[in-house]
């Protein structure tokens, strides 16, 4: 197999990796906010559910969660395609870590902000969405950046439930050609490249949000 052919096959898998990473990251972001805020809710059932979700998905292994969704869930009557099982497992897993980031950042906002909002009689939800979150989001960005790269790395596990992502393609052509070293070097480089791009995007988002949150100092 020539290097060009090799790269073309790997790029096919790379597309799946990018796709799975992006969707599960966005869904994971939604879970992060939903359950991170849920854990601080005034209603105890919401708190318990959020806390249970966070503990279970942080306390067990992603691959166990993935296998559970793919192999065990059909026995309860829900069959997921490799693609949806992969995306659900990745996003639920990363969402549990993200939820702790969201909660931590909101709790870290200066209590004076909370008191000022109360003195102005804001409703709790207005306080949360217009005062606390816009400020907390800046604090969330660096850990979120790490989680996005973590999620991208984790996406390689979907190859183990037969989804033909980059890792899966690498395995396939290795079995056919036995050109192990070039195949894995290219594969690792592609992952590294994706990580650098994702990190860059997160840094850029962080800069935009810093400006929007009014953190810029005196001119």
């Amino acid at each position, binding site marked *: 197999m020539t290097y060009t052919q090799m790269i073309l096959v790997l790029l096919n898998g790379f597309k799946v990796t990018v796709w799975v990473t992006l969707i599960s990251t966005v869904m994971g972001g939604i879970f992060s906010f939903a359950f991170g805020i849920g854990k601080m809710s005034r209603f105890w059932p919401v708190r318990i559910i959020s806390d249970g979700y966070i503990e279970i998905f942080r306390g067990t292994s992603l691959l166990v969660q993935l296998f559970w969704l793919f192999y065990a869930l059909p026995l309860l009557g829900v069959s997921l395609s490799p693609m949806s099982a992969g995306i659900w497992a990745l996003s639920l897993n990363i969402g549990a870590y993200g939820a702790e980031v969201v909660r931590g950042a909101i709790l870290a906002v200066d209590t*004076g902000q909370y008191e*000022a909002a109360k*003195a*102005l*009689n*804001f409703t709790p939800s207005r306080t949360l969405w*217009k005062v606390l979150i816009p*400020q907390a989001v800046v604090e969330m960005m660096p850990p979120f950046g790490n989680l996005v790269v973590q999620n991208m790395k984790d996406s390689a596990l979907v190859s183990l439930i037969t989804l033909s992502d980059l890792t899966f393609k690498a395995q396939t052509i290795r079995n056919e050609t036995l050109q192990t070293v070039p195949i894995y070097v290219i594969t690792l480089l592609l992952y590294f490249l994706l990580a650098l791009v994702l990190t860059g995007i997160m840094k850029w988002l962080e800069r935009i949000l810093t400006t929007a949150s009014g953190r810029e100092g005196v001119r």
Partner: protein
Amino acid sequence: MKQKPIARFEKVLKKFGDNVVLNEFDFEVYPGEKVVLMGPSGSGKTTVLRILMTLEDIQDGVVYIEEELLWHEQKHGKRVAASNAHLRKMRKKVGMVFQLFNLFPNMSVLRNITEAPIHVLKIPRKEAIKRAEDLLEMVGMTAQKNMHPAQLSGGQQQRVAIARALAMRPKIILFDEPTSALDPEMVGSVLDVMRKLADEHDLTMLVVTHEMGFAQDVADRVCMFDHGRIIEAGTPQEIFTTPKEERTRQFLNSVINREDTVTAPTVQPDRDK
């Protein structure tokens, strides 16, 4: 002043864990009155403001605002702890200016002032903006209305915070050490705004401050706190020139000696209010 008090504390108990801050605390403020609360740190004066703003609850006793219970409600003839709805209703009567300003850094100066009138009081946007612009003019911050708090000096931020509190048209406005976090050269501009406010409005003002010059000019009554009690109260003249209590004297001396920036009380004929 023989009116009914606008705010009244009756036998209030406030503890933080085992630390009793206020015990059997009684206190009254009358409509339009300007009261300055003084005393060493930890003496309970800030706690009085924070209880009125509903930032701290009380363990015993009652607090009234305009003859209505603040921390309690009557339900089926029984006195029960206030619901959130009741607290929200009562909070509309009170505004607060904080030591560290607590402006929202993610909003422009104008939006800091209009946000609550629009979304809490449900005032039409146009009217809220007009109200905010008038207030910004009063505090001398018109030019900065589109800036963000981080671009302003401490004194400027505090003037915006005063406008923000006033935009809610409270009956009582609370100032919690409004100048103690400011650089000395900024203090004057904030005190000027507060003086103007005292002169031009019949708003009830409760001010925790060590600025004796300000108290001399503005206060109808100075209350001296120590260990959760008001040990002495009277006109600024009485308290500053002929204090009865030894501890008041000690405190005043320590304030004068500690802060060169404090404008020493200029003895003026007491303005009749």
